[in-house]
Structure formats: structure tokens, C-alpha cells
């Protein structure tokens, strides 16, 4: 990517993209998910047979499709950041909408999966495995919604001309959050759906 010399970013040292406040928040989020993943792993070892048995009832194809959706939308977000850095507001908005579509696809597939489970009478209190499966994925599900709200807000602000090559902190901040949501799923998916 050619970097114009006039770009302030090129001169100033930069450790993290986006606002430092969001990184504090992301750190906090990862801490929470991290603790939950560790607890999951420990409880899984203690109830290995139960977990192995009920893991098979999950729909892995849907999970894999969702992984692809999120990775693609993460890529779109990267493109959106590049677009705004090149002062191409129009493309930035298109890429953001693309990322939103990916997120929406994730939500639809996931809802389908939930409907399937709920109609089978499964809920948080069914057993330990489903408790973890539902609470972890639903917690992540809510994060996807939040991430989409953020991306949508950025798209609207971009449309109003709030961002430019010089001022793209907001886009980067939203992008950082969306990558976090994606990253959590990439860990969550194998952990809950695949690893045996």
C-alpha cells in the first residue's frame, strides 16, 4: 500500500490502531472470554464423556459456515479501513455494508441453530455442556450484535463525511472491535464444536 508522505500517521509513532479506550475495553472483553474458556476447559476435563457426547449434537457445518462469514466480514472491514485511508469514502461505506451483511448472515445462521436447539427443549439448565454452549455462544452472539451496531454507526457517520484520510480514528476503532468479535469466535468455534 503506498503511503502518502503527507499522512500524519507516517510521522507519528503508533502502537495500536484506533482509540486507546477501546483497547482497554477489548482487553477487558478478552479477559472475560479468556476466563470463561479456561473454566470451560477445566469443566470439560472433569466431565469429558458428557461433553464428548453432547458435542456431537451440535451442527458443525453451520458453525464452519459462520466462521467463514466472520472471517470474510473481518476482511471487508480491513478493506474499509484501507479505503478511508485512501480518502475513498464511498468504497469505505460499501465495505462496511459488506461486513454488516457478513454479520447479519452470522446472526441468521446462529438463530437457526438456536431455534433448532430450543425446539428440542434445550435450555441453559439442561446440562453442564449445554449451559456452557448456550451461554458462551449467546454471549458472543450479543457481541456480534453490538459490533454490528458500531459498524453501522460508523457507516452512517462516514456517509455524513465525518471521516477522511487524515481523520479515520473512528473507523479503525470500530474495526478493532469487530476483529475482536471475530477472534473470539475463531477460538470459541473449535473449543466448543470440534476439539474432542
Amino acid at each position, binding site marked *: 500500500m503506498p503511503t502518502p508522505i503527507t499522512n500524519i500517521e507516517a510521522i507519528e509513532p503508533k502502537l495500536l490502531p484506533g482509540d486507546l*479506550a477501546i483497547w482497554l*475495553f477489548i482487553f477487558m472483553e478478552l479477559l472475560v472470554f479468556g476466563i470463561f474458556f479456561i473454566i470451560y476447559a477445566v469443566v470439560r476435563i472433569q466431565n469429558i464423556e458428557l461433553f464428548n457426547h453432547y458435542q456431537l449434537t451440535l451442527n458443525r457445518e453451520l458453525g464452519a459456515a459462520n466462521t467463514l462469514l466472520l472471517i470474510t466480514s473481518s476482511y471487508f472491514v480491513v478493506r474499509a479501513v484501507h479505503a478511508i485511508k485512501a480518502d475513498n469514502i464511498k468504497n469505505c461505506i460499501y465495505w462496511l455494508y459488506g461486513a454488516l451483511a457478513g454479520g447479519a448472515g452470522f446472526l441468521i445462521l446462529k438463530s437457526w441453530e438456536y431455534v433448532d436447539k430450543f425446539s428440542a427443549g434445550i435450555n441453559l439448565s439442561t446440562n453442564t455442556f449445554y449451559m456452557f454452549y448456550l451461554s458462551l455462544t449467546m454471549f458472543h452472539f450479543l457481541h456480534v450484535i*453490538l459490533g454490528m451496531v458500531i459498524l453501522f454507526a460508523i457507516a452512517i457517520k462516514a456517509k455524513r463525511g465525518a471521516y477522511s484520510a487524515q481523520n479515520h480514528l473512528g473507523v479503525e476503532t470500530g474495526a478493532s472491535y469487530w476483529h475482536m468479535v471475530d477472534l473470539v469466535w475463531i477460538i470459541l468455534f473449535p473449543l466448543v464444536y470440534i476439539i474432542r
Partner: protein
Amino acid sequence: MRETFTKGMARNIYYGGGIFFLLVLIGLSVDTVRSLPKTDNSQNLTETVAAGKRVWEVNNCIGCHSLLGEGAYFAPELGNVYTRFGESTENIKAFIKYRPVDGIPGRRSMPQFNLTEEELEAIAQFLKYTDGIKTARNWPPNIQG
């Protein structure tokens, strides 16, 4: 210098995070309320038990005792008192009934509440019902509460 930590972002995190977790809390509360019938012993929640809860409240029992671990820690836990008293409501009633009016010299003593027979039966039934609540890991850890 470029602003790397904006107040606007901190504010958004406050509002966003606050609303997000409030919604999570509401969702979990709905689920909790819906799944309570499995553990809350409501099938045994009779009129007498409800009356017993009133007796429990208007005599401020929680001011000395704890019930399922909540309350004061001056007197014994009563969440499992029914079991501790040999699964007998009569024993509970007798204990409450024969408290000395002037206390026991030098020691803690439960006041004499002058409850009627009806009230005694109600509070005993309430404590029996409470003992029937299915707490996680069957808390309290042992019979002593």
C-alpha cells in the same frame, strides 16, 4: 499530538457497555424466573407457608438469623433448621414457644415473641418449605448451617 484516548470513546464505552450488560442481566433474569419452578419448592407454597413468611417478616427474624446465608450472623442459619431439628415442625414450634422472657444471664437468647398457635404453625411450615428449596450443591455445607 494526535488524540489517542478520546473522551468520546470512553463515554461510548460507558453507555454501550452499561446498556449491553443491563440487557444481558434482563435476559438472564427472564430465564432464571422461568426456570425457578424446578428448584424453588413452589409446589409446597401453601397459604400457611405464605402466612409464615409474614410472621417471619413482621418479627424481623432476619435481624439475628440468616436464611439461606443472608441476614444477620448473630444467630444460627435457618435455611436447614427443619432438618437440624429432626425434620419436625413440632420441635421448631416448641423452641420458639418456650423462650425465656428475660433472656438467659450472660448469653444470647431469642426474645419471647408471644406468637399464637396459628402463627407458630405458619412459621414452622415456612421454615419447612424453605428447607425444601433445592439450593446449588445442597447449601449449607452441613447440618450445622
